[in-house]
């Protein structure tokens, strides 16, 4: 089971910087709000791959897959299901 709270907590503590919005919903765009930028995506990718023991390919590195918490969760769900 993918824990959205964990992913959210990681983004809030490790990626969000001063000046960014304080809070966001699972459906809020992480891209439009500037929460995930080019460096943030690298940090997030490393975290997801390590935490869920998956490999996210460059083809999967799309704005659609990382648009919001829901989309990220769906991607991880798909990847972890494929492994099993």
């Amino acid at each position, binding site marked *: 089971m993918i824990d959205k709270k964990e992913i959210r907590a990681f983004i809030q503590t490790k990626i969000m910087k001063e000046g960014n919005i304080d809070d966001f919903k699972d459906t809020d765009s992480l891209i439009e709000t500037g929460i995930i930028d080019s460096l*943030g995506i690298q940090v997030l990718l490393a975290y997801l791959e390590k935490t869920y023991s998956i490999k996210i390919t460059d083809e999967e590195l799309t704005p659609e897959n990382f648009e919001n918490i829901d989309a990220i969760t769906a991607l991880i769900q798909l990847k972890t299901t494929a492994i099993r």
Partner: protein
Amino acid sequence: MFQYIKMRFFHVMEFINNKNFLSIWTEIVYFRRTCILLEKDLKNFATNNVYVQRADLTMIEINPTTFSENQFIHQSKVRHMKALRYLKKGYSGYGIVRNNEVIGDIWCSTCHKPPEIHPDIVFFNIKCAPNECYLFDMYMSPLERGNRNIATYLERVVMSDLRKKGYEKVYGYVWADNVPALWVHRIIKWKEKRRLKINRFFGFKKISKKAIS
């Protein structure tokens, strides 16, 4: 020639300082590294309000005049040397400036204008028209990376300006393993034309025969 060697030396030193000694090898020796050729149609590119204005930043064109007058200082010594070299070759550049300091830049080569076209255009066999150009060597100061999508901002403003100048298409490439660069290009929605496998051993670079499309 001496200037070129000097530039390369400083480039290596800067690279090592920003990353580590081993990382330089991954840039000069690789086998079947995936490269994605890109193009972006500018015909429908909105030239106004396509990006959020950044009050702290100014965009400049790097040309012989702005460069020779020393109006702006490059944060990186290597980028200053590269700018000098690129201007001699006839390329044009754009810089992103804060407090008179160039913190990032990107360069543009047309396919027909003398004195020189960029070697990548030949290497990748890019067929571009007079109203098209090749964007290359985007750089952002390590201190600025991840600063509220600053690289995306740079590319968007440059595309907007090129569109205003009448350019209809731009070309470029990105390494598939360069996550930050790939992300910037995907946010801007470059069209991914072909995927190639490239082999390199120091100065020798070749497209693998088993290239993927």
